[in-house]
């Protein structure tokens, strides 16, 4: 469903990478690996539609993503920046995200998602008092609330302790089993069953 062909990327005058070809179909996940600075984040930003490519094309269901209305509803991008407002609570942040995505969430459902990520008792605190790991959990709660088909995750496991890492990988597995797709960069290994997940090494 997602087709990346001959993608190349430049940052300023530097060519980061070129000739990237990827295909993602339902139930599949691609784990992007590569050294620091090779362009993993840039690749994800291009696939998500935030940055333009220097060359090549990204297509969703045959249509280039720039022209595709369906893609806007189908993708979910979680980058390095957590997109959490520090002065709002985790609950308020999650409800806002859901509203922006056009799928408003009731307080009950939002709380349930946050509790699943281990934030029981902390949903109403302003995000700025949470630890880095707790903030990331709050951000990842979006995964539970979202019904996006394609997850584009940039280093989702950073700052998480081992139980939380396992939990996030379980969410990923559930998503893939349900027919979803994911494009993930991570320095840590993804505990997702091998049949579903392939690796792609990005090189300069």
């Amino acid at each position, binding site marked *: 469903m997602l087709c990346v062909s001959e993608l190349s990327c430049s*940052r*300023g*005058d*530097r*060519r980061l990478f070129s000739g990237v070809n990827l295909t993602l179909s339902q139930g599949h996940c691609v784990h992007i690996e590569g050294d620091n600075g090779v362009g993993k984040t840039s690749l994800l930003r291009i696939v998500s539609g935030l940055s*333009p490519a220097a060359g090549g094309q990204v297509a969703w269901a045959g249509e280039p993503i720039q022209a595709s209305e369906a893609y806007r509803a189908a993708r979910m991008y979680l980058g390095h920046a957590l997109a959490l407002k520090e002065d709002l609570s985790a609950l308020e942040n999650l409800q806002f995200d859901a509203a922006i995505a056009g799928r408003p969430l009731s307080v009950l459902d939002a709380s349930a998602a946050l509790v699943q990520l281990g934030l029981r008792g902390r949903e109403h605190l302003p995000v700025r008092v949470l630890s880095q790991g707790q903030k990331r959990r709050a951000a990842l709660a979006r995964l539970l609330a979202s019904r996006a088909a394609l997850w584009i995750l940039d280093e989702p496991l950073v700052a998480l302790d081992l139980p939380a890492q396992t939990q996030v990988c379980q969410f990923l597995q559930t998503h893939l089993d349900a027919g979803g797709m994911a494009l993930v960069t991570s320095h840590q290994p993804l505990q997702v069953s091998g049949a579903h997940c392939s690796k792609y090494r990005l090189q300069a």
Partner: protein
Amino acid sequence: MTLHFKFWFRFASPQAFYALAGRLWPGLAVLATLLGLWGLWLGLCVAPTDFQQGQAYRIIFVHVPASWMSMVIYMAMAFWALLGLTFNTRLSGMMTQALAPTGALFAFLSLWTGALWGKPMWGAWWVWDARLTSELILFFLYLGFIGLTAAIDDPRRADKAGGLLALVGAINVPIIYFSVRWWNTLHQGASVSMTQGSSMAQTMLTAMLLMALSFWFYAIAVALYRVRTLILVRERNTHWVGELLKTEELSQ
């Protein structure tokens, strides 16, 4: 029609444009110099002394063409900006950035010569005349463009942001001019007029036209020269620039 289109589109590639600009700018520079000398001779030596303003009025032969050019160049920048934002071509952004310093220069020149003219005329170095005030605002628009494109590190982002700014500015220029004129007439401010009479002597008109053409060719020549440098800098990692620099090294 398709043939023409293809012909012009060929020059949208920086490499082709680099060669074209290299062939054009020397001729244009010579033309600009010749026309400028002719215009200045006509304006400073041949044109009759104005009845009321004496010899000092002769500054209009620089002031008026400079004002015209500052406007024309801004419109040209807006044109290239529109092209660049619509077709996402690299060259359009480079042309806009190449034109900006020259446009700013003409605006600055226009302001200075306006002041030099104002002093003998009204005893003040600056009058809040509608046209001079609009020229000042245009100068700020140029500075804003140059400031923005200089402050953004990524060249493509600088091109696009600058292009949008130039377009927004161009759309606003008539509104700004209209409001400044309203402001000026409302307060019965001073008004700069080129001549008191209803018609200008033929030589004066010819001189101004020649100076305007000279400035125009100068602007194009300088912009083409500048864009060549920009192309070399931006495309320095490509094969053709590498080859070009190698052959230039060898020929020295």
